């Protein structure tokens, strides 16, 4: 296991980062328009000075090497859109918000999704199973930009229980977390149900039943562990997506998270911000995938010997 982790951390992760860094760096430079183009004409002398200030007057390979060296040293460079801010500072300010929102959403997703999937599987073919599956299908089909305003309409505008936007008080956290979490809960419920149904027909479950174990003990002690495998592999990229923010949720609820930077940086051609957010997302994805592999090995002894 240690050798597997060392290979992942020392070889595979840096290599993946370098490849993605290179591809992203050159792709964004191919996009028409630049960071300083605006509706009002920018005079040539101003444009020249801005390009010089940010090093954009140098040949592209020189820019690539300079920026790569800077990133290796831990400096993601200044944002082109926000002149007084470093990309690292902007990410550092926004990530805790996205992380907090992501953790709440993940908790909601797991707290609803796993029990719902388990109970649906244990009552397969009953009205409860159909209800859970119908609701989860609804959760998957209804996009966040519909669900969010719907929840706002009911809980903020009609009932007046919760605020509609912002990130100041604990109450501000509820609607964005629920909106984000419910969609993932729906996926998790369906995954859990499917995998539990597969596990419940295994021979060791039949043996447990033959021994006279209670259904609850069979479900939670024996079936759950096996049924969680596909959920855990889903959770790797899902959790990475959750903790790095959602543009839609952050826009609907005016949450100061990282998600909006992914989109606005591209619109603004904020090259350093695009690089920063992409690299940050890649690191999170790689780390979460590694954690998933470790978690899977923990749950399944066969994988432990293979790795």
């Amino acid at each position, binding site marked *: 296991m240690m050798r597997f982790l060392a290979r992942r951390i020392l070889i595979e992760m840096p290599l993946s980062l370098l490849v993605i860094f290179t591809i992203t760096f050159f792709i964004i430079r191919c996009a*028409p328009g*630049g960071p300083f183009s605006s509706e009002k004409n920018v005079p040539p002398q101003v444009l020249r000075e801005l390009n010089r200030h940010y090093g954009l007057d140098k040949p592209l390979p020189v820019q690539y090497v300079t920026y790569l060296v800077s990133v290796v040293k831990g400096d993601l460079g200044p944002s082109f859109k926000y002149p007084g801010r470093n990309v690292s500072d902007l990410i550092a300010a926004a990530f805790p918000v996205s992380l907090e929102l992501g953790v709440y959403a993940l908790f909601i997703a797991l707290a609803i999704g796993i029990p719902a999937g388990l109970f649906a599987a244990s009552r397969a073919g009953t009205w409860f199973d159909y209800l859970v599956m119908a609701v989860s299908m609804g959760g998957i089909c209804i996009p966040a930009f519909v669900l969010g305003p719907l929840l706002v309409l009911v809980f903020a505008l009609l009932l007046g229980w919760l605020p509609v936007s912002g990130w100041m008080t604990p109450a501000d956290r509820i609607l964005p977390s629920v909106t984000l979490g419910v969609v993932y809960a729906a996926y998790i419920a369906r995954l859990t149900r499917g995998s539990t149904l597969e596990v419940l027909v295994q021979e060791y479950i039949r043996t447990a039943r033959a021994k006279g174990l209670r259904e609850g003990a069979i479900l939670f002690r024996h079936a759950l562990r096996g049924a969680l495998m596909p959920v855990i592999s889903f959770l790797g990229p899902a959790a990475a997506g959750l903790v790095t923010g959602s543009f839609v949720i952050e826009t609907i609820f005016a949450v*100061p998270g990282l998600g909006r930077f992914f989109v606005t940086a591209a619109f603004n051609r904020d090259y350093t911000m695009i690089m920063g957010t992409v690299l940050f997302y890649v690191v999170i994805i790689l780390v979460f995938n590694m954690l998933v592999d470790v978690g899977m090995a923990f749950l399944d002894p066969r994988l432990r010997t293979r790795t």
Partner: protein
Amino acid sequence: MNDRQNHTVFIVKMLFCIMACSMPFCRQSHTRVQQSILEKTLLIANQTEPQELDPHIVTGVPEFHILQALFEGLVIAEPQHLKPVPGIASSWEVTPDGLNWTFHLRTDARWSNGDTVRADDFRFSWQRILSPALGSEYAYMLFCIKGAEAFNKGELTDFSAVGVTVVNGSTLKVELCRPTPYFLSLLSHHSWFPVHPSTILKFGAIDARGTPWTRPENIVTDGAFTLEKWEVNKEITVVKNPLYYDSDRVALEKICFYPIENQQTEERAFRTGEVHITSGCPPTRIDWYRKNHPDLLRIDPYLGTYFYVLNVRKPPFDNPLVRRAFALSVDRRAIVKLIKGGETPAVSFTPPGTEGYTADSLIGFDTTEARRNLEAAGYGPGGKPFPPVELLYNTSETHHLLAQAVQQMWQQYLGAGVTLVNQEWKVYLTSKVNGDFSIARMGWIGDYRDPMNFLDMWLTGGGNNNSGWSDAGYDSLIAVAANSLGNEDRARAFRGAERILMDSLPIIPVYYYTNVYLIDPSVKGWYPNLLNLHNYKYVSLAAAGDNDR
């Protein structure tokens, strides 16, 4: 009932109990808006996160709203009619030729750290914004000062040759390169605001860009408020500056600016009492407010024109008859009804309200004349088929709606097939600058209330003249206006120039903008004006029934 059913019923009952018990705790007893009236705190939905708070770097409207609270220039705009009134300068004189201005600074004007605001600070600030290395996009606003343009372009390196002279600590002389009747109006624009020299130099050279001098812990301001908190994408808070020379007049204790980009979100925040003022109103909600809460909806005139620019460098729009045909077949009344924001159909390029000049009605809706022009150009029945052309606009619901409407009008009235092309913002800008279009959507918002701000755009080779249009007569009339001091001479020159522009029609003006937003009745002193310029020292909050200040 078996065990399982009992269990389910129990869970459902528990859920209902929790919800019922939590209701009294969750229901908000009073809104933030109501609470903030007592605390004299104004809550503003300010569209987007500001790029910066450096008055010499920023270019956007949301930034200007915040800078208005933090800094003050030599003069300020009186809130109702935008007339220049004393700011940091208590008085001024101008020579009869309009070229030499002398400003007398008030002796009680202080920076937020206690330093006196001196004439040298203005000289330093203007040198800073004009420094080529700073790369300020608004440096051109100071080009009316003698030598300023040459200094900004690097042709002049000695700032003492630029027409800004410090006579003494409280007297500043400015020499202009041409008479500029709107000079005083320019001075309330953020590009003319002073910055605190030693704070700037503490974090870098005079022309260093992107230093942290604007952080709350570093910034020194001379306006009615100082910066207390700046949390990216969350909130910017400014608090009353006790050292401000006119602090007795400032009624607000605090202003919170929230960067809410989504119009639907800010409208919901307004509805639930989270903000006093929004930056806009979703078009789909305008009718609802008109019908149910007209007291909350504001539709103010705004100094801007929405138009289509025609590429005169290539056929078919190289022919003025075709351009006229297209311009005459746009039913502007139908369009403004469609977008619902109280906009006015455009009859010329310069919107109403500029100082000393009102454009004549030069373009209308006349389909018969339009068809006649198109036939005279050789298109239509008996002539050539009209070639395929494209209408370019940046991706946006409103632009799309308008593009569809004019596409249908041109098809219906001229039989001209126009393909709609929408592009992402930066791609669209690139296409526009490269002349890679036949018709393109554009909008122009004035920075100051002078027709020059609109009409010098169409000078030959002008940076914003994307049409490729050129007319020597037009250029000479704009030059006459630029060098005239008398209002009548200027107005005559502008009138002549605008007539040439509207005869040749490299553009199709569609409507004059309005500023549509929502405002809580507790906000007093927030007057409608053409530049959406609101000096917070005139703004106050009063609960229902209280008198206006």
